[in-house]
Structures are given as structure tokens and as C-alpha cells.
């Protein structure tokens, strides 16, 4: 049965031609940024070896650039930036708390496990 008391659309589901122009401009700008970041990553990744002295710096800049890319996708393409503050937090806070904790605890543990393997192998 079709229920007519549930209407399935959000506020701001429409915008004018004028507003459309500004939005499209922003989309293309973000596209250029994402493409430039990916190109930069590939150039750095193929030119600088993992044995290089600069590798630590490169590795962390890759991770930082990835988070920048992810932020643009989520905030602009997925329009999370335009949602209400409460919704933003509901979606983002689980990662800031649990995933960062999970990464920290598991990678730390992994190094310990790796050490034990190295000891028992020798």
C-alpha cells in the first residue's frame, strides 16, 4: 500500500539556474584539485623509492593528501558540508574515535607480533 504521509524528499531539493552555475563551477574546481593531487601522488610514488631517506615524509604526505581528497569527496560531492551540523557529527565522529583507535592499536600490536616472529625464526 502506498503511504501518502511519508514524503520522501529533503529541504533544498531544488535550486535555480543561477545557483546551478555557481555549483557547477565549484564541482569543476574540485575535479581539478582531485586530479592534481592524484597526479602528484603518482609522480612522487614512481620517482621516490621506499628505500629513500625521504620515504617517511613522502608516506605521511600521501596519507595527508588522501584525507584531503576524501574530505573534498565527502563534503562537496556528497554534499555533507551543506547538511546540518548534527548530521555531520553523527556520520563523522565514529571514524574519528573508533577507526583512529583501531589503527593505532592494531598497527602497534602488529609490530610486536612481527618482532616475536623474527625472534622465533632466528
Amino acid at each position: 500500500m502506498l503511504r501518502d504521509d511519508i514524503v520522501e524528499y529533503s529541504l533544498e531539493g531544488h535550486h535555480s539556474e543561477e545557483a546551478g552555475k555557481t555549483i557547477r563551477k565549484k564541482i569543476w574546481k574540485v575535479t581539478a584539485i582531485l586530479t592534481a593531487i592524484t597526479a602528484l601522488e603518482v609522480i612522487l610514488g614512481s620517482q621516490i623509492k621506499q628505500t629513500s631517506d625521504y620515504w617517511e615524509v613522502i608516506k605521511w604526505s600521501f596519507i595527508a593528501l588522501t584525507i584531503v581528497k576524501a574530505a573534498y569527496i565527502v563534503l562537496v560531492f556528497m554534499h555533507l558540508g551543506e547538511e546540518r551540523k548534527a548530521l555531520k557529527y553523527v556520520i563523522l565522529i565514529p571514524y574519528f574515535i573508533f577507526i583512529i583507535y583501531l589503527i593505532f592499536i592494531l598497527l602497534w600490536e602488529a609490530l610486536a607480533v612481527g618482532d616475536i616472529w623474527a625472534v622465533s625464526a632466528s
Partner: protein
Amino acid sequence: MAGHASKQIDAKTLWGGKMSPFSTSYGKLMMWFFLVSDALTFSGLLVAYGFTRHDYLGSWPIGEETFQSLPVLGHGYPLIYVALMTFILIVSSVTMVLAVEAGHRMDKKGVIKWMIATIIGGFFFVGSQAWEWSHFIHGSEFGKVELADGSLATVHGEFGELENFTVVTAGDHHKKNEVITEDLMHEYQHAAAAGHIEDDKITLHDGSVAKIAKHPNKDVELYIKENGGKYQMGDRVSGPEAIAMYEEAINSGEAGRLIYGANLEENEYGPQQYGQFFFFITGFHGFHVFSGVVINIIILLGVIGGLYHKRGHYEMVEKTGLYWHFVDLVWVFVFTFFYLV
């Protein structure tokens, strides 16, 4: 800016309970909640990958060494292919957001145009991934080698072409003195892995023994990945010595000295888990892309049929768009953690 608490909420947007949590529609909120849980799944997979990788440290394969082939052009292009795949997915994400934007202006033609572009991008990505998988499974010409001292090494260089096999002892299929010119590489790798090559003679599937005519390998460099009696992880061996060491393994007649390509039990790139993570993470992501393409096609049919235009809004396009961007988002992380670092 969508919905502030102070804003008068249009009665039509209220849910069944006459409320509108977060000033957003029911469908959109539930899509977000699904994406939150799906993102946690992918986070779990990637963190598990990180855990295993940090266990192994040095012997774990390096992206730029493992993925450096292009269709037609061959080897020596580190990361270019995955970069291309990433670019395709980003572009299809852009066309999707343009479809959503056209929907907000009730521009049906614009929505159709951009959604078709998105679907094409999705197919290109899935196709690229199929090629990548096929290449990963079949592996390189050299494979991974266990050297005489017990160390394991990946091999880089120029593989000398196989010319033919001349049968010296007849088997079930081949007669004596027959010259075989077909399917040489497959037979050669199969025999090398099984230890059926000795003194430049190969024992074929049917039991016949043939003499191998092959150009010599050039510029061979061995990257040691696991410690042996003489070489340690991280060592590099090159020059005539490396060529001889590789030849010794090929010609030893011992099974298991060479591994080509990848399956769930072993792979030529690194530890067993590397292959399993590759198949599972990129496979799970590829399945998301595939289902995203299917959902996009279903929504596109609805757009073409005028269903959403009649409804007065294109929110269904927005919801499938959310899923599609999420797929792109996951790939951004897979690209970094599987291929770059």
C-alpha cells in the same frame, strides 16, 4: 545551507511522526547510515591489511614494483595503470554530481546525459579491474625464485624470448623431432614450477622431453625478499651472477623453486596473505562498483521513464549518487594503502 532549526519546515517533508530529523528525508538519512556501516567494513579490511603488512615489514611487496604494467605497452610504467583507474573513477564521480545538480534544476535531459556518462565510467573501471586481476593472476615472465641458498627473490629484467621446443623423446602426443611453437610460455612456466626443466630440456604435459631453444635473459636483477644462507632481505643482486643464479633455479629439476602469478595459496609477489588481501579488498570494492553500475542503470530507466519528474524531485538520483561517491571514496583509500605506501 540546508535546514536550520529556526527554519520553517515544509509540512510535506515531515516523516510519518511529523518530525524531520536533521531536516533530511528518510531515504537520504538511511542511505547515509548504510554508508557509515559499509565504511566501517572497509576500514576493518584495510586495518587488517595494515596489521598483516606490519607483521612482515620488509618482505611485503612494494606497489611500484608489483604494479608496473600497461596493456599493449608492457612493463616499466610504475603505478600508471592504477592512476588511470583512479582518474576514471574520479571523473565518473564528477559526472554523477553533475547529474544530481541537473536534477535540482529539474533538467531531465541533463540528468540522463550525466548518468549515462557515469555508467560508462563505471563499466570502464570494472573492465580495468578485470584486466588488472588477470595480469595479477598470470604474473610476470620471470616469476619468483628460490635461490640456491634458500633465499626468495623477485626477478626484474628482460626475459629472453622462447623460440621453440624440439622433441627428443616422444610422449603421448608429440613425435620425435617435432618442433613445437605454440603455447611455449605456458608450458615453460608450468614445467619450471613443477621442476620439469633440467639441462635445457623440458618434460611436457604428455611426458615427451624436448630441447628448449631460448634467447638468453638480459639485465636480470634479483630483489631478495626472504633471508637465505647467503643473501639477506633487501639485498639486490645483478650482473652475470644474477643471470646464472636464476638459470640454476630454472634448470635444477626441483619442484617449487619457481612461483608464477597468484592464487589463494601462493603468489610471486610476497607472502600468501598479500594475494588474499588483494583479491578480497579489490574484489569487494569491485563488487561495490558493479552493484553501483546496476543501481545507476535502474535509476536511469526511472529518469528516462519520467518517474522522478512526475514526482516533482530527483532525490532518487541524489541517493544513488551518494552510493556512487562512496565507492569512489573507498577507492581513494585503497589506492593509497594498497598501491602507494
